[in-house]
């Protein structure tokens, strides 16, 4: 029987993982809601973010935050270009065409990174910092920073979606693109901005994940199933739901890694997906219509 402290520690580690996952899943979710397909390449944008930051750190000799900003900007541009040059041309196609295309895009991104940097593990070389103690559990300052960044971004997302006219337009396009266009909304501009923002968030997630662990070309790809799980568990298009679901999945996967086998993280997440689809396929805060 694991001790209470060890359980608390696992929950704390899981929350940190969930905070990163949420940032990746929310973009996947919003794009699924608006463009009606699961953009498999979304997770590989996270990889691009990590490597772009690494490049900025190494060649421009910047401090970490400045390099990370450059990394996020690069990802936003790459993600937007993928949309502009590829997905937008296929917008009238069925979603199966778009999914296959996104696998192609994912390959190009992931293996371009492999081609340039090789497949060895790299890291940001961040200075080691003493863990902060809360009672018996220890949390690294980086994990606290990650949680802070994630909560702040989600707070901003919620405010923008709920209280600004841009947020209203996004919701309108999500609910009914034709009607939104008839009502005079520039759906094209709205979609472009959503793709830009979602890609930027994938970049943030990739950089944070790389800071927590190591950088490999598969950094983002390994997050595909977890991000998908967070998306459907939270309810497609629901920002708060995605955050809550990502936390739960982060904790579940940490428990699997600690008390079962590290390599069975994915199996545990797969289990979560099975349960969600059996019990509540529309997710915590989703509507049935999206899943079908």
């Amino acid at each position, binding site marked *: 029987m694991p001790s209470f402290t060890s359980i608390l520690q696992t929950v704390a580690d899981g929350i940190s993982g969930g905070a990163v996952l949420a940032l990746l899943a929310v973009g996947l979710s919003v794009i*699924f809601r608006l463009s009606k397909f699961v953009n498999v390449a979304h997770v590989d944008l996270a990889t691009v973010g990590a490597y772009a930051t690494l490049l900025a750190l190494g060649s421009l000799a910047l401090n970490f935050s400045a390099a990370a900003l450059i990394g996020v900007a690069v990802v936003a541009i790459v993600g937007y270009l993928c949309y502009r040059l590829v997905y937008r041309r*296929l917008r009238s*196609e069925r979603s199966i*065409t778009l999914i296959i295309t996104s696998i*192609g895009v994912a390959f190009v991104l992931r*293996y371009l990174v492999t081609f340039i940097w090789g497949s060895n593990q790299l890291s940001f070389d961040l200075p080691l910092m003493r863990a902060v103690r809360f009672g018996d559990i220890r949390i690294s300052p980086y994990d606290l920073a990650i949680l802070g960044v994630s909560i702040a971004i989600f707070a901003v997302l919620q405010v923008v979606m709920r209280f600004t006219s841009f947020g209203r337009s996004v919701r309108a396009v999500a609910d009914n693109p034709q009607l939104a266009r008839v009502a005079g909304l520039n759906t094209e501009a709205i979609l472009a901005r959503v793709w830009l923002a979602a890609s930027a968030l994938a970049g943030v997630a990739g950089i944070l994940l790389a800071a927590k662990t190591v950088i490999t070309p598969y950094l983002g790809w390994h997050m595909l199933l977890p991000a998908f799980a967070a998306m*459907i568990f939270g309810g497609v298009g629901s920002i708060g739901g995605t955050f809550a679901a990502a936390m739960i999945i982060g904790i579940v996967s940490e428990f699997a890694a600690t008390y079962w086998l590290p390599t069975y993280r994915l199996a545990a997440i*797969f289990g979560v997906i099975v349960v969600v689809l059996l019990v509540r396929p529309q997710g915590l805060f989703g509507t049935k219509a999206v899943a*079908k």
Partner: protein
Amino acid sequence: MTAYIIAIGTIGLIYVLLALSLNLQWGQTGLINFGLVAFFGIGAYVSGLLAVGGWPIPLAMLAAVLAAAAAAWPLGRLTLSLKEDYLAVIAVGFSEVVRSVFENEAWLTRGPSGLPGVPRLYGNAPDGLRDMLLFMTLLLAVIVVFALLERLIRSPFGRTLRGIRDNEVAAAALGKNVVSFKTRSLVLGSGIAGLAGAFYAHYLTFISPEQFTPDVTFNVWIAVIIGGSGRNLGVVLGTFILILFLEGSRFLNDLGLALDGSQLGALRFIVVGVALVLCMLYRPAGLLPAGGKGKNRPC
């Protein structure tokens, strides 16, 4: 040289089986099975383990087909009543979970170092003859599967699958149980992938988890899409092109490109990715399209 051609031919025919399997699922039914390698792997491991355990090879191979088909059923039940995207991502996840089971359940699978000593098909025959016999048997299996699939495609069942692929709502309105038809297509295709896995195990005599990564899945996908989804002959052509490409790219370095192994592998997949995107943008019906209404059909 003959030995080399037979070796390439054997691997090529195994890929043809995988491509035919995917063509039933994707080409005929429109299912995005991104987890094809899971059923290939299950077939290989079931047949390999049973044969190592003393089962006669043909019986072990039959069990492999059934096991791969049976593994597909719950996956189909879970995802096929939802949007296509769900099967796509969940199947990739499934294939990764299956691979991690191969890696971790060492009591059953011998773990990450793999399962050596799988009995070879025609293991008693002399060296050269043995490979030839295996190749001929595999060729026969491919011809039989091909013929059966062609029959199936022309049957009312096949027409219903295409109906579902082209317009699911209409098929449902005509009283077809869409989920049931899709599930049967997934299960049948996975059985064929299991057969491919069984041949693979009894040809190589050694299987390990790292042979069953998603790379295999996407190689087959590119073969099917380039060849022209929906038409079995096109898919065979696509596989042929894929094998030429995979084999040919090995010799790239002879052309004076100084690339290390990892870069060469990466370059291969960049080409695969670009080919997928370009194909979807400009030639969604493939090189040998299945005829019919043209561009808007699901590739």
